[in-house]
């Protein structure tokens, strides 16, 4: 998708919109009755828009909160604050039945193919559950649709009547995708869908995701720590650090001109083989993240930032910019 197309898509009502989403985890420290609660702000005020048919790539490392964001988005984990809108409608507001129906329009594929399928349920049964959840009751109809879904993800009928542990990681991931598709969703959160798979299988699954998107007009939130994977599928990219979005831009722009120091760090840390097979030197590494030493009210990236300035300690940067937005005071300034 070109930049113009993706902007057009956003101009209409986005399919999924997140406004100022927050998720806090509190951990009790110290003695009972006397201790304090440590609050971890896993998702710290995130706003996103995803247009229909688009893929938003969410990049971040461990601790960035990206997986939590995916789960809170689908209401699998209750949010602390903020709103999640699907086709303009808040998903949590409606009645239980209505919100369940709404929820089925949004599905998720998880990272760990070994934990995402019920080990005590036959593969076919896992998918049938989805079909029944969507309201199908006629057995013949269910079986026929099951066959279609299984074929759509590149598996065969021999894979239906067996237990998940007999399948490889890649095959299980296909089953997980088939299950997600069984309720005819419009939106799928793919949370590190290929990280746990071998290199050669990764390519197969990524191709599958791309094909399904074209075939069914799906919208994706693709969560990954791997910039290469993001690049392959994403139209628009958001970079997440410690619960906040620090940069977002159309994919082409982000890859051509990363602006936030953290994004630049991520790019420089990537081992590269350029297409001529030569080694490309990596940039300078920043130090280990200091745990818990994030300055209150300042920029979360301050402890690791090579371009940190005194201003970064006192004020929290917000996303500024037009199509390419960055949350950093030092953008555009000389080194």
């Amino acid at each position: 998708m070109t930049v113009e197309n993706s902007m057009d898509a956003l101009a209409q009502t986005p399919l999924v919109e997140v406004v100022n989403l927050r998720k806090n985890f509190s951990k009790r420290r110290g003695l009972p009755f006397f201790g304090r609660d440590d609050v971890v702000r896993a998702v710290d005020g995130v706003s996103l828009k995803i247009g229909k048919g688009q893929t938003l790539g969410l990049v971040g490392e461990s601790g960035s909160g990206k997986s939590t964001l995916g789960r809170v988005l689908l209401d699998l984990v209750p949010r602390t604050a903020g709103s999640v809108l699907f086709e303009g409608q808040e998903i949590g507001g409606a009645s239980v039945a209505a919100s369940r129906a709404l929820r089925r329009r949004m599905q998720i594929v998880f990272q760990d193919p070994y934990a995402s399928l019920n080990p005590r349920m036959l593969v076919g049964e896992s998918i049938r559950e989805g079909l029944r959840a969507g309201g199908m009751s006629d057995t013949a109809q269910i079986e026929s649709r099951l066959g279609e879904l299984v074929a759509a993800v590149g598996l065969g009928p021999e894979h239906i009547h067996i237990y998940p542990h007999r399948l490889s990681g890649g095959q299980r991931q296909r089953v997980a995708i088939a299950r997600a598709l069984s309720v005819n969703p419009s939106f799928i959160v793919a949370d590190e869908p290929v990280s746990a798979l071998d290199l050669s299988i990764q390519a197969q699954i990524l191709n599958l995701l791309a094909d399904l998107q074209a075939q069914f007009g799906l919208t994706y939130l693709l969560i990954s720590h791997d910039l290469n994977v993001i690049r392959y599928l994403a139209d628009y990219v958001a970079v997440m650090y410690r619960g906040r979005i620090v940069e977002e831009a159309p994919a082409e722009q982000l890859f051509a001109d990363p602006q936030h120091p953290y994004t630049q760090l991520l790019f420089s840390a990537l081992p590269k083989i350029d297409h001529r097979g030569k080694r490309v030197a990596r940039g300078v590494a920043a130090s280990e993240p200091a745990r818990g030493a994030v300055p209150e009210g300042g920029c979360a990236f301050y402890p690791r930032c090579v371009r940190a300035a005194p201003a970064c300690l006192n004020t929290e940067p917000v996303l500024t910019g037009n199509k390419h937005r960055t949350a950093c005071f030092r953008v555009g300034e000389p080194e």
Partner: protein
Amino acid sequence: MEGHNFFREMLRSRKAMFGVCVVSLIVLSAIFSPWLAPYDPGTQNLIGRLAKPLATTADGRFHPLGTDQLGRDILSRLIYGARVSLLVGTVASLIAGTLGVTLGLIAGYFGGRIDAMIMRLCDVQLALPYILIAISVLALLGNGLINIIIVLSLTQWVTYARVVRSGTLSVKEKEFVLAAKALGFGSPKIMLRYVLPNVFAPVIVIATFSVAQTIIAESALSFLGLSVPPSIPSWGGMLADGRTYLVVAWWLATLPGLAITFTVIGVNLFGDWLRDHLDPKLQV
């Protein structure tokens, strides 16, 4: 396909086969007592009292395992006694299991205050020795088979609850449960179809041990005279009766004691093997 392998494995294991044989023997004795027992267990024959095993009494009756102080045939009493042990053992475990699994699932899945309440209940239960509970409850309700079963289920449920709760705690965070939530399923369905089957394996093992424990517990209560009325033969009761005669007629107490021992060993061995084989299969 998976069940097929299971049976073959079982046949191959000596441990399992021993357990299965012992348990089958007990079960068959209990079911077919009237046909298997050579004599009526309640018939007294004071002429032939305290006859040694393999002895023939003065009036010409052959007793393979001897007679007790009232001349009743021990073999027959052992065979009939299996009924009580088995009945109490299995039914009490079944009730305890159902109660414990349900409470454990609810505690683990919902967490928070419900979990805290149920766990405190467990703690209270465990703090009291079962004999004490048994005696108190039986004093209230009176003796009898049904009461014994109730009492023993009350003492057994805690283990099930704890194990199922801990399994539930780890399973409910797994991605396939989240996926089920994403499909829009409600809590009861998720608990029954997604969580329970994945925490159930240890329950089967606990059940076998629980049966063994209950049999011993029943024997103990019988011994204390708190179980079934003395007219119904029970192994514990036979033990109690035989105690006074230990020096002169060792077989009165020893034989029922051996019956209890073998039953418990058999059930335990089977449970042992079951635990090893219900573990998720190791893949190549």
